[in-house]
């Protein structure tokens, strides 16, 4: 691909737009990792559930936006018993125990999706058709709207953390669950709320991304790697850090793909984070060790 400033600008803009979705997917993963210390392998599967619900809503009821309410609600409702029965007993134990439990959930969700939804991939038509011409390509309007929505959700979550009592409690627990408990913070309730919010946001991310991807029972697997990478590179518990890392990854992929064959560009975009992890072991914005 010949280099032009137009091409570079397009790749940067698209990198930022996609970063909003990756940031949204990573949000719940980050919260669960940061607060409960769990590497939630099932997070991508919940995202897949959101996309599959969007597919059913569009095909059965003809309403995409309804899915944006129904999918998070279902994910939130199901996450309560899962938290109580599966996740709660693994908190505070070796990282591997949580990993085994959530991998189990991943297997269960993936296989159930295959049994119910089937192996054939599906497509969700974007609820907003058309595109805006800029930088030499017609940019799908839905991408811009969905990215704006994702950004709004990320800002809303940030405001929730900064300006509500629950947000304060969450930040307290993230710093030290013991101190938080000693200060009267209902740590148990904070954990539950984080799990519910995380599941709801993952499902919502699945709904929003569904019209831009192929809906399949295994779609959550490929997103898990990039999501984990931005969470850790951004700094555990740092919302802005994950988004910044996602933007960095998106831009790097786009810019590198101008100069390198795409596969090498993709590898370069993630390999870029290795030196960053060496220089800042706690992530770009991570302070805690």
């Amino acid at each position, binding site marked *: 691909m010949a280099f032009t400033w137009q091409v570079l600008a397009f790749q940067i803009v698209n990198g930022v737009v996609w970063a909003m979705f990756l940031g949204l997917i990573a949000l719940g993963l980050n919260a669960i*990792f940061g607060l409960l210390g769990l*590497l939630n*392998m099932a997070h991508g599967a919940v995202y897949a559930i959101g996309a599959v619900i969007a597919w059913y809503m569009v095909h059965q009821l003809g309403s995409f936006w309804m899915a944006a309410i129904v999918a998070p609600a279902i994910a939130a409702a199901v996450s309560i018993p899962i938290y109580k029965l*599966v996740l709660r*007993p*693994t908190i505070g*134990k*070796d*990282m*591997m*125990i*949580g*990993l*085994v*439990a959530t*991998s*189990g*959930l*991943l*297997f*269960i*969700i*993936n*296989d*159930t999706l295959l*049994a119910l939804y089937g192996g054939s991939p599906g497509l969700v038509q974007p609820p907003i058709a058309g595109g805006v011409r800029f930088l030499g390509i017609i940019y799908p309007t839905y991408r811009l709207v969905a990215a704006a929505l994702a950004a709004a959700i990320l800002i809303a979550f940030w405001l929730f953390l900064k300006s509500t009592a629950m947000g304060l409690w969450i930040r307290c627990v993230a710093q030290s669950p013991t101190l938080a408990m000693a200060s009267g913070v209902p740590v148990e309730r904070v954990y539950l709320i984080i799990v519910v919010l995380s599941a709801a946001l993952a499902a919502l991310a699945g709904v929003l991304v569904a019209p831009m991807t192929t809906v399949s029972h295994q779609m959550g*697997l490929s997103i898990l*790697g990039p999501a*984990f*990478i931005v*969470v*850790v*590179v951004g700094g*555990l518990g740092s919302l802005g850090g994950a988004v910044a890392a996602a933007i960095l990854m998106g831009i790097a992929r786009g810019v590198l793909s101008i100069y390198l*064959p795409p*596969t*090498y560009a*993709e*590898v370069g975009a*993630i*390999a870029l*984070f*290795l030196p960053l*992890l*060496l220089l800042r*072991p*706690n*992530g770009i914005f991570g302070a805690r*060790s």
Partner: protein
Amino acid sequence: MRDTVGLIVSLSILLATCLLATLIGEFWTGVLARCVTWMFLAISFTLAYSYANIPSVAQATVFGAGAYAVIWAAPAIAGNIALMLLASMIAGGAVALVFGLLVLRMSHSGAAIGTIILAVAFSMLGNAAIGLTGGTDGLPLASEAFHLFGIPITAGPNIGMLLLGAVLLAILLAGFWYISGRRIWRIVRAVQQNALRAQVLGYNAVAYRIAIYVISGCIAGLGGGLYALVSRHVAIETIGLSMSLKSILWAAVGGISSIYGGPIGVLAIQLASEVLLRWTVRVDLIIGLMLVAVALWLPQGVMGLRTRNANWISTIKQWRRT
């Protein structure tokens, strides 16, 4: 501290596996031969995680390096299995050395992600570099007259390869048991438990961790080499992230704190899958339920049962004394 019971348990299981293989026919022999190669992978993860403090999500990449080393070396060294396995160990150790140097100074979670990055990157590159790896199609093992120190051995999922794998694994486990009673292992444990404190005491913590990780790489590489000889075909999915994830689950189900747990974890999960496949397609669903059950009721894995039983026995003893 030598875990003699752990050694006896794992060796007994290996022995039982070999004896069973002679009774239950060619198909199961092949299944078990492949399982033994994966046991090396599970053990290598335990070693990396529990003793080098590197939660390596790229162990399958190291395993794959060993497997490809055998595929590449086979025609050049005319079927000399000893040399082929040596090549696989060197390949595994070399890849682990590079990975170790890259991720050693990272935080615990950083190292996990660092290895994910490496696994994803190598998987993508391996998929694209078809000339070298065969990509998704994979590469076959060249047909050679394979021999071990002059003794002819047929490559493939057969009793000879099962025995070779089992003997090497038994030597490895016994060697580990021996080393774990030596002073040097105490230093390894000291470094693993608190690297800073060990450093203050004058031990080069970084060198110890790297050394252990490289050894874990040699073990994974050796497993990969055996896998290539058993499977006679290596495809790029062997080195993928999902294979690494499998190795973590095997290690965790067997018991992550004990090196002797890996073989049990491999057998538990793989044999369960194999048996379940006979009557249902929902194997993953059942394996998923099994993993959740292990996390809830057997958090220390199968090897953890021993401490649990030991606690139970001591409680009974105390109760009888009172």
